[in-house]
């Protein structure tokens, strides 16, 4: 047995996926040498500040695994994969409209795995479900800083990168992100920007600044996202500040700007604004580039701008919740989506940027130029400062 | 003594703090038409429900016996009784014949026997089977429902039939008719009827014996004549028929009578009722036992109290002469109507008049019961 397989098993053990006895038994059964075993056990007792507790988040899945094993689906194929149970199911929880329609059927056809696919509309909605610890999801797609939050709560399962044969396809720019150093948990899924979508046929001049949301001539024809990070963030950027600012004075200024624009806004609305852009009820909307592209597919007059003051850049990532019952399949799906042709399909359908270097999507809304890239900033978790943000957001909404 | 089919021995029934029945005892004989009479809330329905088994006596609350067996805890369906409810309680979802057959089915009567028995019961209450058997209760008149309810009870050939104000919802004419029929059925079938009513006239007409209830107790038990003619308490006297009351203190005895001095005048009462010197005495006199006469023409040996005629009321068979007596009391005197057109009554409003009665016609009542 090579050290790598043992490592993997050890990782499982640490993550609470195996109890101590089956870990040791299985190690011995694999024919590990006494020294390796001793070394591992030593590492184990030394390094396990996180000795797995059955009641911990991983407890429930332990049962799941036991069940799966009990069904006799487990095959000892000798290459170390057997530490993960083999099932024929996979549950994906993704943003709505965030995958190409035929990706899942294709994956099902190729692998024989039955996929349950559910969607959500906000990170918070998804997090609430994960915090329950037993949502039953195998793959979720949090936005960058949410990965940090989930990891901090010990809700994620560490990636087994060696199972991801297409890992090399990823563009180095999206690897080792600040929100998840060394991609311990996450595989980049899509990336995009939060800018301004507009109706080229309705506006006098293409908007190039967040200041457009202060422009009285577009009163009642504009919307911003229904999301505190995006709205307050845009006004922080407008004043040349970081969209992760926790400075009270800066936030107060953002609040004043937001309140000024609120009088002109039609609504705070996120993805649903697409239909109204198409119908012309809304002319100018704070929106993601990809959703803008989806709307553009319905109406050619829709265009996209990145404000000159800067905007948000984000990466959404595939992660596996610690409570996932079908980790092996989740990894298989991750790997599947890293194939260039699949990544291309997804990027084409959603209109978002692919982190896949070998993908070749058509991009009706161009990727940001290098110059634009410099203006973009990535959202980080606010930690304790979230309270201040929430207070300010409530004040904006109550104003 | 005849066979007792129902017997109550010092039975008590309490609902929470409310004592519905207090220590009542009586027995009902086989074939008897026994009425329980009283105003609403007196405990008469509770008494019937104790017999039926819907209620059970309190722990240590005496005994209820049916055919000699103590049945305190037996459930209604273990008692082999039949009952006609005030609301009839016909099953609205079942046809007339299915309503009547219900009890037979419950008691395991052979299937083949049932149609005949149903027909027989319908005949008994004079319901036309061809016409009514398939109808639903909603399609019947009040009187017809009443007959179905009766048939449903009688079809079981019960030894005891409980009737809870069964005629209350009928109009006067129908009620009279049914009273007669019930009495006839009672005689012909030999079934014991236990009849609850608040209608004193109905009770007097139909019953062999009546238990008058008041405030959870039996105020008096007896034949209709005993109850009417010798009421034991002011309550019974007031509740059954009309009565005039005279009261005072016993002041002296002379022969068979005690002399009683009241605020409105003195009168004699029979001595046998345990009146003692100085005791408060109250007597009841039925209007028809009173006479009205000129104050100076009172027949010898009769009690008389003088007053003024307040009004004369025409009732058909009789006339009521209302006489105001001293002490702001008005008594009613019933006078036979001998024809107001041919032989009009001499009395009119404002005349001085005395009411008079024979001492033996007044009933000395027990005190302490309003």
């Amino acid at each position, binding site marked *: 047995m090579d050290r790598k397989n043992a490592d993997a098993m050890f990782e499982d053990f640490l993550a609470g996926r195996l109890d101590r006895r089956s870990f040791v038994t299985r190690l011995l059964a694999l024919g590990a040498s006494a020294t390796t075993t001793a070394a591992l056990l030593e590492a184990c007792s030394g390094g396990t500040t996180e000795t797995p507790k059955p009641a911990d988040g991983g407890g429930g899945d332990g049962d799941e695994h036991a069940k799966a094993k009990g069904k006799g689906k487990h095959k000892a194929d000798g290459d170390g994969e057997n530490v993960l149970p083999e099932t024929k199911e996979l549950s994906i929880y993704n943003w709505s409209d965030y995958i190409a329609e035929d990706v899942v059927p294709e994956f099902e056809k190729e692998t024989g795995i039955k996929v349950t696919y559910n969607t959500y509309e906000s990170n918070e909605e998804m997090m609430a479900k994960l915090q329950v610890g037993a949502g039953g999801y195998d793959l979720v797609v949090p936005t960058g800083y949410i990965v940090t939050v989930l990891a901090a709560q010990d809700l994620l399962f560490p990636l087994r990168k060696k199972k991801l044969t297409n890992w090399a396809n990823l563009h180095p720019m999206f690897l080792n992100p600040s929100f998840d150093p060394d991609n311990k948990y996450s595989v980049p899924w899509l990336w995009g920007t939060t800018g301004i979508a507009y109706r080229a046929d309705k506006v006098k001049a293409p908007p190039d600044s967040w200041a457009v949301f202060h422009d009285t001539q577009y009163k009642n024809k504009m919307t911003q996202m229904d999301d505190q990070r995006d709205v307050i963030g845009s006004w922080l950027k407008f004043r040349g500040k970081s969209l992760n600012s926790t400075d009270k004075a800066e936030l107060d200024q953002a609040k004043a700007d937001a309140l000024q624009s609120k009088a002109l806004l039609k609504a705070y609305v996120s993805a649903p604004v697409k239909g109204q852009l198409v119908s012309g009820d809304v002319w100018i909307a704070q929106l993601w580039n990809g959703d803008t592209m989806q709307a553009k597919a319905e109406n050619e007059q829709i265009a996209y701008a990145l404000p000159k003051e800067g905007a948000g850049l984000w990466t959404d990532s595939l992660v596996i919740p610690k409570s996932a019952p079908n980790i092996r399949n989740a990894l298989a799906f991750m790997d599947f989506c890293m194939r260039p042709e699949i990544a291309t399909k997804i990027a084409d359908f959603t209109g978002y940027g692919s982190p896949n270097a070998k993908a070749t999507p058509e991009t009706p809304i161009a990727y940001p130029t290098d110059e634009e890239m410099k203006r973009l900033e990535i959202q980080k978790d606010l930690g304790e400062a979230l309270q201040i943000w929430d207070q300010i957001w409530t004040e904006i909404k109550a104003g | 003594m005849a066979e007792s089919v129902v017997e109550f021995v010092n039975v008590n029934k309490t609902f929470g703090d409310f004592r519905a029945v207090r220590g009542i005892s009586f027995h009902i004989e086989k074939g008897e038409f026994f009425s329980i009479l009283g105003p609403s809330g007196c405990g008469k329905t509770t008494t019937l429900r104790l017999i039926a088994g819907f209620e059970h006596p309190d722990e240590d609350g005496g005994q209820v016996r049916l055919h000699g067996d103590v049945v305190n805890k037996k459930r209604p369906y273990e008692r082999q009784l039949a009952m006609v409810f005030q*609301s009839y309680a016909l099953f609205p979802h079942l046809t007339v014949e299915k309503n009547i057959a219900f009890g037979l089915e419950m008691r395991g009567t052979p299937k083949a026997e049932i149609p005949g028995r149903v027909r027989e019961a319908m005949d008994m209450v004079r319901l036309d089977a061809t016409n009514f058997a398939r109808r639903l209760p909603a399609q019947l008149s009040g009187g017809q429902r009443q007959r179905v309810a009766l048939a449903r009870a009688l079809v*079981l050939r019960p030894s005891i039939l409980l009737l809870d104000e069964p005629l209350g919802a009928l109009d006067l004419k129908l009620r009279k008719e049914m009273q007669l029929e019930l009495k006839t059925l009672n005689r012909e079938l030999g079934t014991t009827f236990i009849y609850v009513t608040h209608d004193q006239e109905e009770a007097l007409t139909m019953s062999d014996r009546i238990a008058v209830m008041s405030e959870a107790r039996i105020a008096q038990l007896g034949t209709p004549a005993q109850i009417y003619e010798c009421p034991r308490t002011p309550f019974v006297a007031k509740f059954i028929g009309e009565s005039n009351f005279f009261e005072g203190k016993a002041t002296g005895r002379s022969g068979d009578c005690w002399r009683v001095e009241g605020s409105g005048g003195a009168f004699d009462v029979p001595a046998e009722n345990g009146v003692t010197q100085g005791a408060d005495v109250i007597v009841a006199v039925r209007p028809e036992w009173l006479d009205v006469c000129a104050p100076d023409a009172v027949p010898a040996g009769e009690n008389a109290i003088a007053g003024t005629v307040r009004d004369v009321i025409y009732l058909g068979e009789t006339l009521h002469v209302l006489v105001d007596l001293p002490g702001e009391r008005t008594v009613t005197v019933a006078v036979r109507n001998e024809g107001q057109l041919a032989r009009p009554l001499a009395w009119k409003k404002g005349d001085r008049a005395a009411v008079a009665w024979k001492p033996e016609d007044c009933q000395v009542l027990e005190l302490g019961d309003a």
Partner: protein
Amino acid sequence: MSHRPPAWVLAIVAAVYVFLHAPLLVLVVFSFNESKYSVEWTGFTLHWYQRLLERHDIVDGLVRSVAVGLSSTALSTVFGTLMALALARHRFRGRSFVEALLYVPIVTPEIVVGISLLILYVLLGWPLGLTSITIAHVAFNISFVTVVVHARLQGMDGSLEEAAMILGADEITAFWRVTVPQLWPGILSGAMLAFTMSFDDYVITSFVSGTGSQTLPIVVYTMVRKNIEPSINAISTIVLVVTTVMLIVSDRLSRDKPLSAD
């Protein structure tokens, strides 16, 4: 009484009926409109209904909603009927406590119900899914069923059961032979109410749903949010037609059985 309400009252009434029905009617009409965005009538089509068949999330959602609706209705109807029987036919201490308990679900705002249940599930580590949704629906439906059945029981002559018992039926026989047939319309309308509320619930369900448990309202909500094509009109029309039919059927069923002989 023959007095007609004054004309201005009738005008308000007419306006209210238009207000209640025009939106639904428009929705139905435009589910057959060819145009994808416009409110102009461009021609008749069944295209949006065909689209529904292609969308297995809608079909799955419908199946789940029916499954959750039926099971939660069955449970809450049984529980609620038993509670109503206890309240209507039995004397017991603690009645006011039970009555207060039954009030709680009726007066608690949905959002509080949904969130507090989610907290409970988090604490218990109870997996979110069709079971957790069904439990939630049973919890908020019991009270409504109890109230409806209780009202019917109160309108029902209690001496019917006594009559059955004195005719020889024991409690269980009397219950099945007399009480249930009488109570049936009440139970049915309680069940109808429960099913509709379960079938329609979005707020509470959205908090307690998990993988593979997106019911129809949740799918519809996502579609309403996106608001892009008339498929939503089509699915609304279907829901509308189904509820109308159910309503008419239950109305028929309950009207055939009079409450009492009077």
